[in-house]
């Protein structure tokens, strides 16, 4: 299917506001926003949703999604989300986070929110760099990857290995569902959408914590053309971050 046809067929979900986003060409954030908008719209639960925008490229998520939303200090995102959920347990609360936000400055917060089993959905966009601040090394930067603070490539000797968030959280008792998806082919995007749906269901039906990690392109700071970024994920990221279900108590 040509892109023009795909657009015609799907149209723009109403919950995705017609603003032009500030995202770079080929960035995955816009696709993830769209998936969230589609799910909320398909389920007709705009009025039930409260979203947390992170400090990072997606801080303006609330600019584009037509739902109640809140912003938090860098990395504290899941704790602010947990505070909202404790106050409004009947609402669908999700925390949207980048890899710097979630796996560096907010590592403590995500581990303890997951460990307490706070019934929120975490949408974790792993683009292997700090996008917002200009492409520095992230905790998920892959070995050898050049960033603006690893000009010779990430050295595992000096900088350690990338942090695998799903596997880390799987060591805890309470997380109910952890899956790693990809913003890549149409099929993979559909799988990402299904995972987000499942995460929302786990929150609503089980009252449990879940997280969907999404390997997501950042052509600008990977310094690859947008068209090649999907290949980049396959070649570089998927070896270290294998897509798939890491934990699922519903099975």
């Amino acid at each position, binding site marked *: 299917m040509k892109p023009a046809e795909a657009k015609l067929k799907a149209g723009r979900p109403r919950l995705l506001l017609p603003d032009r986003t500030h995202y770079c060409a080929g960035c995955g954030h816009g696709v993830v926003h769209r998936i969230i908008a589609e799910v909320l719209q398909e389920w007709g639960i705009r*009025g039930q949703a409260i979203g947390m925008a992170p400090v990072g490229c997606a801080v303006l998520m609330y600019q584009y999604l037509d*739902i*109640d*939303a809140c912003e938090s200090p860098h990395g504290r995102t899941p704790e*602010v989300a947990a505070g909202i*959920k404790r*106050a409004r347990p009947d*609402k669908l609360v999700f925390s949207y986070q980048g890899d710097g936000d979630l796996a560096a400055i907010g590592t403590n917060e995500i581990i303890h929110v997951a460990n307490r089993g706070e019934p929120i959905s975490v949408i974790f966009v792993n683009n292997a760099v700090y996008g917002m601040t200009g492409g520095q090394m992230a905790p998920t930067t892959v070995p050898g990857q050049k960033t603006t603070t690893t000009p010779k490539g990430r050295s595992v000797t000096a900088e350690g290995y990338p942090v695998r968030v799903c596997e880390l959280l799987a060591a805890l008792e309470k997380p109910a569902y952890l899956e790693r998806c990809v913003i890549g082919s149409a099929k993979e995007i559909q799988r990402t959408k299904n995972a987000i749906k499942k995460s929302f269901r786990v929150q609503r039906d089980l009252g449990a914590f879940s997280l969907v990690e999404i390997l997501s392109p950042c052509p600008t700071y990977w310094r690859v053309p947008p068209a090649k970024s999907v290949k980049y994920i396959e070649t570089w990221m998927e070896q270290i971050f294998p897509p798939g279900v890491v934990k699922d108590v519903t099975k």
Partner: protein
Amino acid sequence: MAAPASAEEKVLVTGNVAAAEGAVRAGCRFYFGYPITPQNDLPEYMSSRMPEVGGTFIQAESELAAISLVHGAAAAGGRAMTSSSSPGISLKQEGLSYLAGSELPALIVNVQRGGPGLGDVRCGQADYFQATRGGGHGDYRLLVLAPHTVQETFDLAYEAFDLAEARRCPVMILTDQQLGQMMEPLVPAPMKDLPAVQDHPWALTGAEGRPRRIVKSFYWRPGELEEFNRRLREKYMRMEKELPRWEEDRAADADVVLVAYGTSARIAREAVDVARGEGIRAGLVRPITLWPFPAAPLAAAARRGARFLVVEMSWGQMIDDVKLSLYGTPRPVDLCWRAGGGVPTVAEVAECIRKARR
């Protein structure tokens, strides 16, 4: 302590418990904290009190997390609080700046200890600058309330959320180790009849049948942040005009006006007794709001020629505000201080009064 059953009941509690119960009876249903001496009986009390009233208690993994949970619960319309002591309050500064920037109401209790660094768990008042200047990054202030008895600790906690919601700003109750840990009789006010979460016009409730709401402090369009700051400044200037509160004791005819808050104010009052006994006309102005600082009574005393003696448990922080209050009418301002866990004795302060009069 078992929660007192009726308003007529008199109980004997610590200042920390009084702060907790004052907040609970004001409708606070969300408490988030992290242990630190000398305020541990506050979260411990809340851990059993919150479930009794259908509220939420979480012992968070850090002060950063605790204040972030407060942020979330407040954004959703809950009356939310946290408490800590000096080193923990330093960690909360990030959250306080975001609360102020997001214009969210909340209550923070700081039971001050000696610093800097890990310092000591004994008494201190050296967080005055941090409390009254905002403490985190950016232009903002906290509304800072300074009780000096257990009863007043309860009363200010009971009132704090009304003030915080009316002004949409975080409120800090600034006490100290002695005030927090000592016991005094308390006659508590009755439980306010409020829902656990309120539907404020800005609160996140899910955008059912209405335009979405956004709770944020990020203003990125050119000029937007400047405009927001202009509005914030106006708000805080209104507070400066409308909210200063203080208590005077024998200050009207005093040649030496003592200025002190919290535990220092209790000692200063006794020292005033001693001085009056010796025929020295001493008096006390006790700020109840530290921000906004009550400049008016001090300026008035300066105009009639009084001298000033600031008593505080720091090298001298509130003394700067006293001097600023006298702007235009310079008068001698002395300092009587102990810091690093030391508490001034009545005799020491009385001697300072004798010296100040000369």
